[in-house]
């Protein structure tokens, strides 16, 4: 079980790293989401794995899992939601301002056949 957890965290982190290195804002946001999962899970499992031992005090029960990493991760999840939201909105605003969702706000230069023709007009991009 430990191996499954460790490798899953590793895979999520790897996918996250790959995505944050992309050139568009959207994959960077997704990458951050994956990295967040990996990081939160990492902190969480620093309390070690335990099954059926939630840290809720009950009479007659003596084995509980470590509550502290859980408390830390709980706020971390909420805060990372805040962070994701800010980044999503930041990328949206940057896209609206610059007509480009390139991470550095570079204007559109690459016209690739892979892109489907986007109805222009307000978006101000005409792909030949």
């Amino acid at each position: 079980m430990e191996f499954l957890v460790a490798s899953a965290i590793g895979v999520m982190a790897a996918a996250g790293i790959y995505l944050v290195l992309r050139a568009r804002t959207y994959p960077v946001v997704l990458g951050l989401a994956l990295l967040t999962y990996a990081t939160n899970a990492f902190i969480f499992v620093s309390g070690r794995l335990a099954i059926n031992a939630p840290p809720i005090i009950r009479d007659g029960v003596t084995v509980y899992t470590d509550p502290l990493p859980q408390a830390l991760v709980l706020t971390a999840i909420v805060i990372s939601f805040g962070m994701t939201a800010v980044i999503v909105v930041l990328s949206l605003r940057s896209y609206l301002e610059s007509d480009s969702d390139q991470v550095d706000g570079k204007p559109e230069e690459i016209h690739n056949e892979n892109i489907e023709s986007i109805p222009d007009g307000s978006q101000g991009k005409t792909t030949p």
Partner: protein
Amino acid sequence: MSLDLIVLLPFLGAVLPALMIRVGRNACATSAFTVTLLAFALLMTHAPMVFRGETLRVGVDWLPRLGLNLNFFIDGLGFFFAALILGIGLLIIIYARFYLAKEDPMGTFYAYLLLFQGAMVGIVLSDNILLLLIFWELTSLSSFLLIGYWKHLPEGRQGARMALTVTGAGGLSMIAGMLLLGDIAGSYDISEILKHKEQIQASPLYLPALILILGGCFTKSAQFPFHFWLPHAMAAPTPVSAYLHSATMVKAGLFLMARLWPVLAGTEEWFYIVASTGLATMVIAAWIALFKDDLKGLLAFSTVSHLGLVTFLLGLGTPMAAVAAVFHILNHATFKAALFMNAGIIDHEAGTRDIKRLGGLLLLMPIGGTIALLAAASMAGIPLLNGFLSKEMMLEEAAHTVWAGQTWLIPALATLGATFSVAYSFRYIVHVYLGKARHDYPRHPHDPPFGMWGPSALLVVGVVAIGLFPAAVAGPLVAVVAGAVIGGPLPDYHLAIWHGLTPALGMSLIAVAVGLTLLWRYVSLRGFWQAAPHPDAKAMFQRTLATTVRLAKGFTHGLHNGSLQRHLLFLIVAAVVTGSIAFFSASHEAGTRPLLAATPVAVIAWLLLVVASIGVAMLHRRRLMALIIVGVAGIIVSLGFLYFSAPDLALTQISVEVVTVILMLLALNLLPKKMPRESSALRRWRDVGIATLGGLGIGGATWAMITRDGSTLSGYYLENSVPGGGGTNVVNVILVDFRGFDTFGEIIVLGIAATIIFALLDGALQGEVGRKLAAWVPDQKRAKDRHPLMLVVATRVMLPLALMVGAYIFLRGHNLPGGGFIAGLVVSVALIMQYMASGFGWAAQRMRVDYHALIGFGVLTAGVTGIVAWLADRPFLTSTFGHFHLPLIGEFELASAMAFDTGVFLTVIGATMLALASLSRIGRWTDNQTVPERPMDHHISRRPGKEH
């Protein structure tokens, strides 16, 4: 009278002139004068005590654990410098009142001046070297403001920058040196450090500390090769030059060398560094001064030369030389400040400071001329004036100093310096005041009003009085100050005009004779000067600065060219490399913790998660699809939390997941749905490589961690949760009680994040982006039914139920999984569903809650709960709980943590809703449709009359 008040007064008083300027220029100057006078009077109350040879210490603990305390002390040396600073300050304030033109902002000037004055007094009265450093930096800053006072003059601004750069760099060096010194002595209090001479001089850190401290002193006191900033600082108004660059700031370096003289002086290193630098500065600066045509330039280099003289004396390290140094500081302050004021008067009256355009002024302005004559003669070292006495003492000391085995070198150089000094002093007299009156002065010169010449006259009275009766006038002061510098018994010395036929007298005679000859042959001498190369300090300084800036820019831009990709790449590669180094430089053993068996369900979940992660990475260009896959990963992570005994986390994760997906969908509505493949295959494979290494590292670290046992704090929380926090859900009790302060910070952050989102999107509605949005053409087909019947009905039925669930989760949170965070998210989801089903416009009209206010109210509730603990004399956020009995309901428990959790709950709702609603509002701008009056479109029967 309290010492700290003397330091504090100028700082407090700095506000006064800035305010009083509204009343008038006289009121402004008077207020500055009064403040300084008050400080001066306070200082003088300490005079009897100081002259008895006592010291007084007062102190307030500031940051005792860092050794930084507001300790002040006053002894002879501190008293002397404080008196110089405040006394000459008084004269300068009067002088400046008449010097400054009508259009100069006088309030600002006096405010800066008082700030500077306070900082200087702080330096000389500090008993703590860290405190001294703070004042030291303050003098650099305030002098920057004063030198650049005439903002419209480029020379002023450049001079101010140069002064700040040089003295600021010196200040940094001094900070390092002082920290070393304090470290060696084991205390940062000067009076304590002064007791540890042997310990300091024996330490291997003595030399580095000495060099670093001297770096600060030499830059501040303009010693060679850092002397170049002082002449450029002369672009300042003359009162500033007279005050900062003759009497006070440039003496700060000398003061510090004198202050630390008992522990630093007396070694070979001290002698060779300090005495040589001083002597070199004295000779070189005097030589340059001889050829300066600008009166203030001449005086500036002369000041550098005299500072060199004092540095040289301090560097000799003998008590006798220390006495001479103290005496010369006093004498120099009197005649040089008088001369600076005089230069200002000439500038003011004749309209120029260029010596070549002056001459014959004595008869036109007899008072100013007489003052200048006496002061300059004193500077030249002519008998019966005070400059003669201390110069004589310097020559006497130089006469028997051996430098690296050479007996002739120091006496010869000292005589040479004295010679140039005679020459430039007489040049000031002969080329400016003597000779025939001219007819081509830019302005017709005459004596200025008393306010302008009075202060300098007072100083010249001192020059003559000390010159005639040194022992009576200056004797006691010199004795007590020198005693403080030496920190031991005074040597046997006599302040007198006639010492008999000494070598020093011979050197003096040679200096006067040769000096006058040089001036007589000035024209040919000048030709010789002009033929010699002149390194342009300013150009060199600017080149050095430009090179530094270029290198720094190159380095920064090389690392970070503004590209996020490159920046992140460096960050990740650095992390991978650091991790690898740590990993491969240690031995590894397998963990010993017993492992859990993997269940088939777990394997399936694992497979799903791995496929989802890789799938997102591969399919990220198909954005909607990628979002769905990320959602899958999120759900499996929540299930993982649930499985591994973390029900609170599972609940939180799943509700955050819902909110995040809604948020992303709202954003995707406006973002492009697909995108081109941008990176080359090479780049993609490179990134795959880096990502794999990173993933291996993180996975490996996780594996290493969870296969070992570790120590944990959890025992404390588990034991104290019920008795201390009154709740059985330990995670919730930690959040709202044990670590409530963290949570308080986090809800504030969440509130800030939501406000940022609102600001970003609200701002987008204006200007060009707003117009763009209004003319938006959807890039995807829209559903014909904007508000589908099923969705609307379902969400409306769900709303009360969801609110009930939220309340339930909230209420039980303290004892069972749940709590403010989760409840807040659940309620937000229920509310946002209404927006989704019936549209933003319709829902917003019915949602009468201001989300900003909700955030504020939530944070406030949590904060007030914390503050209530103060009323019971407990620390912030101390919780309490009790069991209460109500008729009908029975026994129930109430914890103050509940109120705190309510704050959390409200903030989470406010923040989430503000973020989502702002995004929906943007979306609403793009579809230009009227707000529906009903919760759903009723397109089922469009025929009129058939509406239900």
